[in-house]
């Protein structure tokens, strides 16, 4: 929590530029096709007046390069290929030197110690062919917060060059797994989007499943066996306190926050009949949304809060259904071959991600909210539990090989750029946070 708190003390200043890029000459990556031909970007090690600042500068640049590379849309140019040696941020670069190594964009920056013990980190993004400055920011922060600033700068670069919001200044909450399969230990763990700064939120005493972030990123809801039967819990990341959600006659599971964070939608099972309920967190009043003897579970709100997609086997096999947020208008949307589950509405609202099971394989796919346009992005022995990056462009999920432990993976909406997310232990049930405040 220290990292977040210290960030609140930081401030960001937009630098004014004498010369703005003309719109027509905008350097732009096509977010759908960019993977085929990633844009070469040179990220120079950030400058600094002393060894400590230079070290931070190198670290910041390394994190930026890694973020851009992992996005699949950019290809960081190997620093050993650089011709010009940047020695001052204020001086425009020799653009020809960067064009000749085919760097279409150039990132320079510097780290400056401040009298109060903080540091200032600033950067500038250049279009080497247009010979213009595209953007630049500066941040003052505590020295231990450099990593978050590196993610923020990465987001600025991504935004400037793709025209869409970034997703690097985010975190992942997931289930860390260890031990034999018959006695698996599952604990909540949280880390930065790139796998850095991992730490446990819960102990090995109780098995936990399916964590999800609140829109404020300060709360997590998850399911735990802590009290014996499955129960929905809330975890406050600011106070590190957890509490059971409500006192229900049966087991509760599959929780998710409403888009404004004021409520939770979840499954309550009574006597073998699972139904979807919503609960207002302040009034603690609950509303039953489904009423069917079949399985109804895995609810997920549309980003405007008006609809809920969920999983039901009322038609004979698990399929995806959509209903209005008050439970009215329930209708099936999945009609392809196979068994559909774990629907998650994209933060952009345009798509629903799901797990599809068929032919002995599990796939991650997307479809439009009316069920049209189904596309499978990735498939294996077991791919499960998609979660969206906050810009709706990347999906993280977990993959288990036959008889193997689970690991986290990400794939782009294009179905390209499949990558494993580094975790120290086996890992499942990832949930991607919104952009951090």
């Amino acid at each position: 929590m220290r990292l977040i708190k210290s960030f609140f003390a930081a401030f960001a200043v937009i630098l004014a530029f004498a010369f703005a890029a003309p719109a027509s000459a905008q350097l732009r990556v096509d977010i759908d096709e960019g993977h085929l031909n990633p844009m070469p970007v040179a990220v120079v090690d950030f400058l600094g007046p002393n060894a400590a600042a230079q070290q931070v500068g190198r670290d910041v640049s390394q994190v930026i390069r890694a973020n851009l590379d992992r996005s699949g849309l950019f290809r960081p140019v190997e620093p050993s290929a650089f011709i010009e040696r940047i020695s001052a941020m204020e001086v425009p670069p020799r653009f020809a030197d960067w064009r000749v190594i085919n760097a279409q964009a150039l990132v320079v920056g510097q780290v400056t110690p401040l009298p109060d013990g903080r540091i200032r980190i600033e950067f500038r993004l250049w279009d080497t062919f247009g010979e213009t400055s595209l953007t630049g920011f500066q941040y003052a922060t505590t020295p231990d917060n450099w990593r978050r600033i590196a993610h923020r700068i990465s987001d600025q670069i991504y935004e400037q060059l793709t025209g869409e919001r970034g997703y690097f200044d985010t975190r992942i909450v997931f289930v860390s797994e260890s031990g034999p399969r018959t006695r698996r230990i599952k604990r909540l763990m949280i880390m930065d989007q790139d796998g850095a700064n991992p730490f446990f939120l819960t102990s090995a005493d109780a098995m936990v499943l399916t964590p999800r972030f609140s829109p404020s990123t300060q709360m997590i809801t998850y399911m735990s066996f802590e009290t014996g039967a499955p129960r929905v819990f809330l975890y406050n990341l600011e106070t590190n306190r957890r509490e059971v959600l409500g006192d229900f006659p049966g087991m509760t599971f599959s929780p998710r926050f409403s888009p404004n964070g004021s409520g939770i939608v979840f499954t309550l099972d009574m006597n073998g009949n699972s139904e979807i309920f919503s609960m207002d967190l302040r009034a603690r009043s609950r509303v039953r949304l489904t009423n069917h003897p079949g399985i109804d579970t895995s609810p997920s709100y549309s980003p405007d809060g008006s609809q809920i997609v969920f999983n039901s086997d009322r038609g004979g096999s698990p399929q995806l259904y959509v209903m209005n947020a008050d439970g009215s208008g329930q209708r099936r949307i999945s009609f392809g071959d196979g068994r559909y589950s774990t629907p998650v509405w994209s933060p952009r609202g345009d798509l629903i991600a799901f797990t599809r099971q068929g032919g002995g394989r599990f796939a991650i796919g997307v479809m439009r909210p009316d069920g049209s346009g189904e596309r499978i992005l990735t498939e294996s022995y077991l791919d499960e539990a998609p979660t969206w990056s906050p810009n709706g462009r990347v999906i993280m999920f977990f993959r288990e090989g036959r008889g193997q432990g689970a690991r986290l993976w990400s794939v782009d909406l294009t179905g390209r750029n499949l990558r494993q997310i580094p975790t120290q232990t086996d890992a499942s049930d990832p949930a991607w946070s919104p952009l951090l405040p």
Partner: protein
Amino acid sequence: MRKILIALAAVSALAACASRPEPTPTPTSPTAPTAPSQPSGPTPGSVEDFRVSVGDRVFFGYDRFDLSPEARSVLERQAAWLRQYPNVRLLVAGNCDERGTREYNLALGARRAAAARDYLVSLGIAANRLETVSYGKERPLDPRANEEAWSVNRNSHSQIVSGAVS
């Protein structure tokens, strides 16, 4: 390893015994003869007695929660045993194989536990002696990833929580 053997024993017991429970043959180790063996099996009324002589698990088909004739006969033996030991309380836990997604399997496991519990109640066991829970696919009995393991992992497990002879 021990759990696998128990599971396999349970399956073979299911397959073999249409009539009365026989003492399940204990898997013998090929190594040295063991210390004096118990002459008469588990203590009547004990957790071990329930597990070995009655059978504490019933098994289900893929994505099914209906009780097979074999499952019914095990539950009938459980009910008879519960009538004999009226202080015993059970936790009936529903389990699933790994070939389903996590939340769906929690719901499916709850159905399996409810199916077993409801049958015990229909046989005259008081509902307040029976609690249910679902572990979904989180507590497989057999760690392997094949049809044999999955068929064992799709079960309802009657666990004694109190009242057994110790």
